[in-house]
């Protein structure tokens, strides 16, 4: 596609529910990143994939957060037993070459946990 696509655009979950957030990266992009952005803050790194391999998950805040990219394209970020502090915008980004290059971001999924 023309850009990184994320769905749903908005998600409201009751505390304790599980949620799944989807990311369609730019076709052919090798690297995929998930970031969390709290209101009024900069994006915070969560995890990174190179193709289907999750090479860095050091930013995942707890074991309730899980990400996968089984075929090296679409990625899903899953949050189990959501808590109010999980409320944020979840951004996905992709980049093509290996190494240092700009990240191309989607418009994010705004998650609100009530």
């Amino acid at each position, binding site marked *: 596609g023309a850009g*990184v696509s994320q769905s749903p655009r908005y998600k409201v979950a009751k505390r304790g529910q599980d949620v799944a957030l989807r990311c369609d990266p730019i076709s052919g992009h090798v*690297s995929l*990143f998930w*970031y969390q952005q709290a209101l*009024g*803050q*900069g*994006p*915070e*790194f969560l995890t*990174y994939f*190179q193709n289907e391999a999750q*090479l*860095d998950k050091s*930013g995942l805040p707890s074991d309730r957060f899980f990400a996968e990219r089984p075929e090296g394209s679409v990625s899903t970020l899953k949050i189990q037993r959501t808590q109010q502090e999980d409320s944020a915008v979840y*951004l996905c*980004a992709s980049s093509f070459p290996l*190494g*240092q290059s*700009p*990240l*191309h*971001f*989607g*418009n*994010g999924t705004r998650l609100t946990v009530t």
Partner: protein
Amino acid sequence: GESVGLHLPTLSVQEGDNSIINCAYSNSASDYFIWYKQESGKGPQFIIDIRSNMDKRQGQRVTVLLNKTVKHLSLQIAATQPGDSAVYFCAENAWETGNQFYFGTGTSLTVIP
């Protein structure tokens, strides 16, 4: 993680004036920097990048300056337009520590018509 911060959280400029947004970073190993623009309800949009072997890079109406000695980065926007109103983030990356980028808190730029 590394600290990437901005000196001014908000900035208001008159349309047509030049804008300067500043950013300080703390990781001396950082060697690649990007400025992003984020409008309300959208993801960050790439503006311009610079590598540590350069101290200046120009784009269309934008210039990024890098001072490695004091670990400072700035974004200059010429002839600021209402469409430039947004939050601006600097992001840093260090090749030796992997692919993740660290973002600053952001500066909100408001252009007054």
